[in-house]
């Protein structure tokens, strides 16, 4: 009679009397070593196998597809090993075995079912066979966009883009089927460039949607769209847009070459590209206009500019640009010309205030109080007598506070930002004056400076102005108004020396050779006077009004 099977736990020494802990450790170490060696052998074998496949494959390809579907599946699996989001679906297509490979989450599976699986399984007899992939695409597959691919690198890239791969036993080619579908943000209102009267739709993160927004605004066959992939790993689609019969000759080639020469592993946001297109990397002023507005892009294209739209980025780039482009808003064209001109002029005044007002305050208070009327000079002196710091330190303190508020408000969720604004404006603003840390006039000066910065239509441009405020303050603290004047001149020289694609960064500002462009610069003349495109951009066709176009 068999003994009943039972387990009992004993001490190791009780089962193997001669064993000891040291002996066990030794054996365990040996076992670990063997496991490690076997892993190394496995890796070496897989490398050798890869090398063998590579030796057979054409240059630049990791392997070559065979007629055997199992072998092909193994090759694809090895190329996409440890990618659990890749799905493999085997089925029978007539007599042959078929395999569908796709990336879950980026593929429309119902579309795949309808346009591929149903077509191949439902329409074929069980003993039917195929000659080549073209036969399948021509007769069976109903998907709109299919491509026969031979190169394994293309196959892998297509799968990772969301296209599905179809492999059929007995055929060494693969079929890439466009069935990409992914979650995306709907086209919505512009968040950073809202306008009161103009169109409200803005770019989202999907390149095709963004291109559609541009195309919807113009039916011009001369609007060309070239799409490249940039980023050795991310292979981000980047679209280059221009109007062929307007853009300056040579400009497209130059920008295209620059884009193609970008050698970087990833392109995540538009700024990645923008930095590569800037010729002065330490220059705080933006050298490409980033916008969320398709109407702005279309307007720029018809002035002879080039636009770059990057997949996964809601900001499109426009270049070449000049300072005036950062000072203009879509509202300037929806308002009456006289009002728009006044608004534009006030922006230029704001620009001056944003950089120089704190510096002028420090100069006058520290060096030239005599320039103020006696009454005002005495009241400022009285206010300053209560505060312990020199005017420069006071200004820096307030500047620091302003920067902190700005950063807090930008980073916080919208509801909290309002609260932070109240805290900043009421609590701290009032308290620093009551605590006699700074005087009330300086609070007014810094608040006005901050508001002037915010009035800039471009946030990036406003940031650059913030950057220049600090050296202006330092210059004023050392040499008063003389320092401010010298700093202003140096800043003008710096701005004059900036160029984007050989265009001056100051555009037509005070350039008498470009006097024809002045009508849409600091002021905006009525539309009927804007008969020509800006001369500074060198368009092939300058006629805007009254010509054939």
């Amino acid at each position, binding site marked *: 009679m068999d003994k009943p099977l039972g387990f009992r736990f004993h001490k190791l020494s009780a089962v193997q009397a001669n064993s000891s802990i040291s002996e066990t450790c030794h054996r365990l170490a040996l076992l670990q070593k063997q496991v490690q060696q076997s892993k190394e052998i496995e890796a070496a074998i897989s490398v050798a196998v890869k090398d063998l496949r590579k030796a057979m494959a054409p240059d630049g390809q990791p392997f070559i597809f065979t007629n055997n579907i199992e072998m092909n599946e193994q090759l694809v699996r090895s190329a996409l090993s440890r990618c659990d989001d890749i799905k493999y679906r085997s089925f029978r297509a007539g007599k042959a075995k078929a395999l569908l490979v796709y990336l879950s989450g980026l593929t429309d599976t119902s579309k795949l079912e309808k346009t591929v699986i149903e077509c191949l399984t439902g329409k074929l007899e069980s003993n039917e066979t195929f000659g080549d992939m073209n036969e399948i695409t021509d007769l069976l597959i109903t998907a709109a966009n299919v491509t026969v691919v031979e190169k394994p690198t293309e196959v892998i890239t297509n799968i990772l883009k969301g296209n599905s791969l179809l492999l059929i036993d007995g055929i060494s080619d693969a079929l890439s089927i466009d069935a990409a579908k992914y979650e995306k943000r709907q086209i919505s209102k512009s968040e950073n460039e809202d306008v009161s009267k103009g169109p409200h739709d803005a770019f989202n993160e999907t390149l095709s949607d963004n291109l559609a927004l541009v195309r919807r605004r113009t039916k011009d066959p001369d609007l060309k769209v070239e799409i490249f992939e940039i980023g050795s790993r991310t292979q981000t689609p980047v679209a280059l847009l221009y109007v062929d019969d307007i853009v*300056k*000759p040579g400009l497209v080639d130059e920008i295209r070459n620059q884009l193609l020469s970008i050698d970087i592993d990833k392109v995540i946001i538009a700024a990645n590209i923008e930095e590569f297109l800037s010729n002065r990397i330490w220059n705080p002023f933006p050298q490409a206009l980033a916008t969320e507005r398709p109407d702005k892009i279309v307007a720029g294209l018809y002035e002879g500019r080039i636009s770059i739209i990057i997949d996964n980025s809601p900001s499109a780039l426009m270049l070449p640009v000049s300072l005036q482009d950062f000072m203009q808003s879509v509202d300037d064209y929806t308002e009456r010309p006289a009002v728009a001109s006044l608004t534009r002029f006030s922006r230029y005044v704001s620009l001056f205030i944003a950089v120089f007002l704190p510096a002028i305050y420090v100069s006058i208070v520290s*060096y*030239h109080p*005599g*320039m*103020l*009327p*006696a009454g*005002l000079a005495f009241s400022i002196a009285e206010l300053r007598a209560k505060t312990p710091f020199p005017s420069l330190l006071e200004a820096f303190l307030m500047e620091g506070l302003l920067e902190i508020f700005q950063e807090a408000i930008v980073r916080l969720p919208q509801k909290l930002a309002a609260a932070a604004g109240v805290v900043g404006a009421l609590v701290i603003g009032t308290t620093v004056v009551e605590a006699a840390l700074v005087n009330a006039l300086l609070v007014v000066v810094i608040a006005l400076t901050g508001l002037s910065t915010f009035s800039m239509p471009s946030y990036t441009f406003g940031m650059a102005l913030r950057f220049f405020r600090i050296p202006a303050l330092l210059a004023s603290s050392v*040499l*008063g*108004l*003389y*320092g401010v*004047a*010298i700093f202003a*001149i*140096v800043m*003008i*020289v710096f701005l*004059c*020396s900036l160029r984007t694609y*050989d*265009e*001056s960064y*100051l555009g037509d*500002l*005070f*350039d*008498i*050779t*470009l006097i024809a462009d002045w009508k849409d610069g600091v002021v905006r003349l009525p539309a009927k006077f804007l008969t020509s495109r800006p*001369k*500074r*951009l*060198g*368009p092939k066709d*300058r006629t805007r009004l009254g010509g054939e176009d």
Partner: protein
Amino acid sequence: MANLEAKGKMSAWQLGIVITSGLLTARLLTATSPFVSCAQQLAWLSSALAGVLFYLAAYLMIRLGQQFPEETIGEYIPSLVGRKFGAIIFLVFIIVLLVNIINCAAALTTLVSIFLLDRTPQEFLVIVLLVAVVYGTVQDWRTILRVIQILFFGLPMLYIFYSLIWLNFDPLNLLPLWPDNFIGILQGVAYHTNYYTGYESLLVLLPLANRGKVSFTRTVGWGFLVITLIYVFGAIVLVGSITAKTIASVEQPVIYGMKSVELPGTFIERLENYMIMFFIPGTYISMVLSYFAIAEGCRKSLKYKDHRTFIPVFLPLIFWVSVFIYDPQRYHVFQNFSMFIAFFFSFVIIPLLLFLVWRKKGRDQQC
């Protein structure tokens, strides 16, 4: 390509702006006394005659430059007077422009140290100004041209302030209107040299200008007309406001005149400070222009690739002399020297060179 036309050489009108703005400097505030002391009430006539005379000099320079369209003075003079004399004349040209830079730096920093920053050493003010000037000069010509155009449009503000002196104007101060002091008026014309120095840079700038339909003599002529009107107007206003006698006896008559202006019930005080502030861009333009002309002239004649090589060469000299002449006596001696050398260059050397060119041309035609 429309915009490339604009980007090549400067236009004739741009040349006119460059020359005009190069002449409007802080010296206008300081150099008035000598010629008013000679010409007295008729200083305005002296200014008008000076305008004609110095335009004549500029005209001769343009004619000389037109004989050698793509060359600067340093390149063509050896072919006219030989290498040794050519080098000497080129050296005189450089000295004229260097003296202009030094005069500008000294005039501006003196005014700033007296009226804006009374406790700041002048050396420091000169260093700061020279740093900015060097930063401007190391740029390419396109950038400098753009800077000049932008700062030029700020100059009208200066004359708005200048015109406030009208408030104290008394026409009786201009009497007698009939000139009885012809010698004094002519002496006053000569003393205008310090007003007008700077147009000599034409001899380097002409090859950088586009020879289009508009002639250089016309655009530069318009520039001189504007400047002459400003000086004539300035002389009338100043003499009419603070009298010729007062002008002759004070160091900075324009500032004196401005100080006497009172705008009751207004926010603006110390008008002279604003005026000095608006003179800074004008003086800067003149300094950069002269410095660029020196560096570019040297580059062309010595066949260098970059004009920037020559910028540090003259810097210590400019600094040292600018500080050295802070003393009023030395300043006056230097003023006389600068007047003499500029006058000699414009009215002796240039006509001589032009004569040699025409003679050479005549000979070539005979051959």
